[in-house]
């Protein structure tokens, strides 16, 4: 299955549901979408990877570029739905240490709301 990206906002925060495979043939599409939303200037962006079959280093590059862009423009990138073999890839590349990863989109939205209240 190729990559599919649908926008399903959560509590007023941009959220993308990603499904299929994230590799060197599809990562550019993901990076373009992520960059576009980070640049749109929201306070956060949620990326739900629950339906992702697998992710290679090209996919991690796309997420990292977007998260670093977000960090410099105060738009936090939060990831959720990471389980099984996809989680194993995050751990293998020590990406679980650099990304903010929560269980669900709802938890991501709550986290962002709390962060903006604190700020």
């Amino acid at each position: 299955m190729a990559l599919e990206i649908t926008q399903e906002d959560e509590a007023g925060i941009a959220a993308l549901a990603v499904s299929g495979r994230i590799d060197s043939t599809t990562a550019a599409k993901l990076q373009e979408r992520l960059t576009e939303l980070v640049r749109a200037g929201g306070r956060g962006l949620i990326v739900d990877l629950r339906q992702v079959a697998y992710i290679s280093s090209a996919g991690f590059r796309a997420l990292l570029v977007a998260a670093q862009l977000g960090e410099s423009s105060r738009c936090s990138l939060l990831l959720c739905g990471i389980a099984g073999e996809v989680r194993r890839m995050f751990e293998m590349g020590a990406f679980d240490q650099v990304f903010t990863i929560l269980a669900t989109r709802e938890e991501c939205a709550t986290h962002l709301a709390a962060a903006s209240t604190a700020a």
Partner: protein
Amino acid sequence: MRLTIESRLPEIARAMDLVGELRQLHGLPQRDADALCIVLDELLSNTIRHGLGGAAGHEISLALDYAGGEVTVEIEDDGAAFDPTQAPAPVLAATLAERKPGGVGIAFVRNLTDSFEYRREADRNRVVLRRRVMA
């Protein structure tokens, strides 16, 4: 199973399809097929971008086989000599700001295979990988 692809990134999707055919033919678990797709994505994209310098018009040969509880993957190209088995382990910074995007691909290949060998033969790069898989 054999396949020749052109040295363009979209062609990698054909290699993934071949993994799918191997999985179906032998009833292999999806998680192993996914691991093999990641391995092929890392090596083929490396070869296309770096080994062949992004130049189109080269051919990359692939062979996939399942026998004796093991999948064997062979990849051959006519690019400059490059031994991916000697790639240094990446430095993995633990903060988002300091983390560099590259370097993990070959580490993924090592982690997802049981053997990873390289030979330079007749001006061609030849990589042979094996992964134990229970059908």
